[in-house]
């Protein structure tokens, strides 16, 4: 069963927006990383994510008449972006950057592995097959740093515990499907997201324990990003992201 073009477009946005917004956040660190080596590592990850975004948006644009990938990336309003709230959270400090990345990477790798093997859509399958290797490295990088920060100095420990505490409420949104994700699951193009949940939290909790980071007990979770209801940080991020296209519409490099 194939998806209608409009729904497939919406599904590609959910895949691409997470990568776009997290890539933009990481891009902000270019030249500002805590050390030369981590600076390069984080911007490498940003570039991987932007590459995935382009593949997703090219396919999204192909579903609509007369749209380009740039239109999709730059010409939407805030409430038309469907990324999860986690990825738009600011680069408060290195512990936040790594924790946000780790929480995303565990989910992202599970999703890409599923899509690369199971998606009924050949294009999505191909995009995911390429992304799997990148996602695997991202997860390795962020897990290593979670362990180092959690089991490092008292300063790094305290900061990463704070970051985990603050970002934890944004983790459950991954598993609450949007309309597009529900339709994709019915069409066999995307996974049943709820089926990832147990595996996700098993992985995350075991790593947190290994890193000597207390697992938060907060049962209240935030969601809304997938419906376009974003946190106060999103507007500033988009102002940066969209500035050139808004000022010089249809500009190219």
């Amino acid at each position, binding site marked *: 069963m194939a998806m209608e073009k409009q729904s497939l477009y919406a599904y590609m946005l959910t895949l691409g927006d997470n990568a776009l917004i997290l890539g933009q956040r990481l891009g902000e660190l270019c030249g500002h990383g805590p050390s*030369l*080596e981590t600076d*390069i*590592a984080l911007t490498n990850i940003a570039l991987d994510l932007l590459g995935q975004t382009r593949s997703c948006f090219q396919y999204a644009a192909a579903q609509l008449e007369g749209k380009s990938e740039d239109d999709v990336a730059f010409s939407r309003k805030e409430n038309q972006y469907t990324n999860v709230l986690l990825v738009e959270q600011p680069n408060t400090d290195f512990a936040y950057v790594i924790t946000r990345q780790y929480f995303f990477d565990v989910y992202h790798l599970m999703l890409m592995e599923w899509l690369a093997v199971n998606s009924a859509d050949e294009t999505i399958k191909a995009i995911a097959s390429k992304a799997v290797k990148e996602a695997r490295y991202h997860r390795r990088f962020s897990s290593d740093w979670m362990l180092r920060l959690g089991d490092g100095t008292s300063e790094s420990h305290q900061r990463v515990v704070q970051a985990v505490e603050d970002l934890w409420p944004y983790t459950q949104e991954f598993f609450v499907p949007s309309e597009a994700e529900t339709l994709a699951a019915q069409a066999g193009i995307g996974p049943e997201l709820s089926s990832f949940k147990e595996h996700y939290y098993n992985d995350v909790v075991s790593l947190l324990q290994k890193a000597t980071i207390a697992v938060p007990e907060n049962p209240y979770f935030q969601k809304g990003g997938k419906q376009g209801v974003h946190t106060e940080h999103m507007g500033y991020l988009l102002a940066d992201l969209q500035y050139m296209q808004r000022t010089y519409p249809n500009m190219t490099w």
Partner: protein
Amino acid sequence: MEKKNWPLWEVFVRSKNGLEHRHFGSLHAADATMALENARDVYTRRNEGVSIWVVESKHITASNPENHGELFEPAQDKVYRHPTFYKLPDEVKHM
């Protein structure tokens, strides 16, 4: 808080199977695992390599530039140590 620098590591990359590892540069890292990860990001992101070695710089013993004269100059006028005085048969190529 005192800012401590991570130790320095030297990075060797093999660009293709069959070639030797070559010195590519150096970087800072807290330990060997991190040095490998950093080397991957700093030195192989443009597809430069298939294998990486890292070694902490302090483990490398280097010759002293001040001893250049006694170490290296005596070899300069000993051309007979190069095998250039033999006639090679035409069948032998690429020598």
